[in-house]
């Protein structure tokens, strides 16, 4: 262990950095696209099943296949990896946002509208705050997916902890495989934990106290 860190320590830090970089931007892109889209879909129920169905289909495409498909379109490196992982983060965030906002008590929506809120105010002041726990759990799930699958991004030259694992596989070196796999698991768990704290912070007070 200590010997492993002495040999690969600095490289490990670089790889963790790359891994986080890819995952972060993939997730950020996912949130920026899927949350507004999910909210928008609650206004168009017919389009909702189409889009969520589409996201589900994308989810079922093997991740390696998506990464491979990126190569002819976007080439290799970090950018195509980010795009591919973004596709994976879409479904959980989109579905949770849509369901969370849709399931806000219709009486509260009625009251908010009846008091004279604009559609935008209804969304920002009522629907999103009340749906926040559900939206956040979608983002958490998306984050864990993205960090786990970012390992495969190594295949298209994006770097990250996948490099250790695949090198280890090629060279039959167990310490390299573990040196990649364990940090990935830890990263995923840590991210889930931190986002969990953020979720509690963002949740409405009345829901927080019940927990």
């Amino acid at each position, binding site marked *: 262990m200590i010997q492993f860190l002495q040999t690969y320590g600095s490289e490990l830090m670089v790889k963790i950095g790359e891994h986080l970089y890819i995952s972060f931007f993939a997730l950020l892109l996912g949130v920026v696209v899927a949350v507004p889209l999910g909210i928008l879909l609650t206004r168009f129920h017919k389009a909702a099943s189409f889009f969520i169905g589409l996201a589900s289909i994308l989810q079922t495409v093997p991740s390696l296949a998506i990464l491979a498909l990126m190569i002819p379109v976007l080439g290799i490196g970090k950018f195509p990896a980010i795009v591919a992982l973004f596709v994976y983060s879409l479904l959980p965030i989109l579905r949770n946002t849509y369901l969370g906002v849709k399931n806000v008590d219709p009486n509260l929506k009625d009251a908010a509208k009846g008091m004279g809120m604009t559609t935008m105010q209804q969304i920002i002041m009522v629907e999103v705050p009340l749906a926040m726990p559900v939206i956040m759990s979608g983002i958490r799930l998306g984050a864990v997916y993205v960090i786990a699958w970012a390992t495969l991004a190594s295949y298209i030259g994006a770097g990250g902890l996948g490099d250790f694992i695949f090198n280890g596989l090629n060279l039959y070196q167990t310490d390299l495989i573990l040196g990649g796999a364990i940090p990935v698991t830890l990263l995923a768990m840590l991210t889930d934990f931190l986002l969990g704290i953020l979720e509690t912070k963002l949740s*409405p007070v009345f829901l927080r106290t019940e927990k």
Partner: protein
Amino acid sequence: MRHKKIMIDEVMNLLKLEHVSKVYKGGKKAVDDVTLSFNKGEFIAFIGTSGSGKTTTMRMINRMIEPTSGKITLDGEDLSQKDPVHLRRGIGYVIQQIGLLPHLTIRDNIVLVPKLLKWPDEKRQEIAKNLIELVDLPEEFLDRYPGELSGGQQQRIGVVRALAADQDIILMDEPFGALDPITRDSLQDLVKDLQQRLGKTIIFVTHDMDEAIKLADRIVIMREGKVVQFDTPENILREPADKFVEEFIGEDRLLQARPNVTTVEQIMLKTPVSISPAKSLNEAIKLMRDKRVDTLLVVDDAGFLKGFIDVESIDYNKNKATSVADIMNKQVFFVRKDSLIRDTVQRILKRGIKNVPVVDENSKLVGIVTRTSLVDMVYDSIWGDDSEDESDAAEVHSTTTEKVE
């Protein structure tokens, strides 16, 4: 901001519905050619079975539902020409499910509409404080969340939320339907009091005939999207428009219709024994002896009811106090002269009070109702009225209650 404060003539119709219909997809007529007009300051109750179109009609007033045809005007202005968001900010809205936002404090819930209207913060703070006081809830509640309040307390907040931006019209959709009878009763009193005191126009949807009779100045009875009868509770009870209305009112209420619409003023004694707060205890005792009563109402020079004193408290404080003001009990239960006997009678009997002072709309003492005359009213409504003149009846019983016990 296009938010005009409207000055209108008292007698002019505030709100007019002309040949308003609502047809849903598939041809179901929810509202069928409804024409109505309401005056400023009126308490209007819509009543009908479910599916009669009463809620739909109400929701067209704040454009939560758009009419298929017909015209609704507010102060002569066509609603369809107004921006619905601005319109709704000027109309209070109370629903059965209360609809307080659970993630906001009571304070933020109360001043939600003022916030939407971008009123300054100090003004909003002041409104929140005034309004929570108005519904007799402690100021600490402002920092709590709706989930920490009981259903009745929440709906009190729901009611004042509809007043926060000084809305002239308030729409209420079965607001007390989900509350227990005691809470409902006190909220009904609150709303009626607010309406009378603040001069609000209230459009109230209910399926409870008792509630409609108790609260409304005029009742709209609807069936299958049409208005069957639109009149005062008294007239509806006296002359139901057709069999449907009769059935809706119910046989019991029709039988009781007469005492139901008797006001306190009609049965009260018009010469209550009263004393001014400046008088001495000796004078009070002398007055009691002369008039053969055990309780005196304390009334100031302008005629306002201040409290009461009774024989026990005089006896107990004989050596300590000198004037009536020193020992008078300010916690006096009174009724308005225009309140209906049927609302009042149970409250009086339940409290076990012997006499209840009656005041006019300015809180001036105008008379007194004795327990015996009320009991008599109850008997009349059960066994019918043997053509006994009411004033005679009150006279006869007055002598019995005024005796010192």
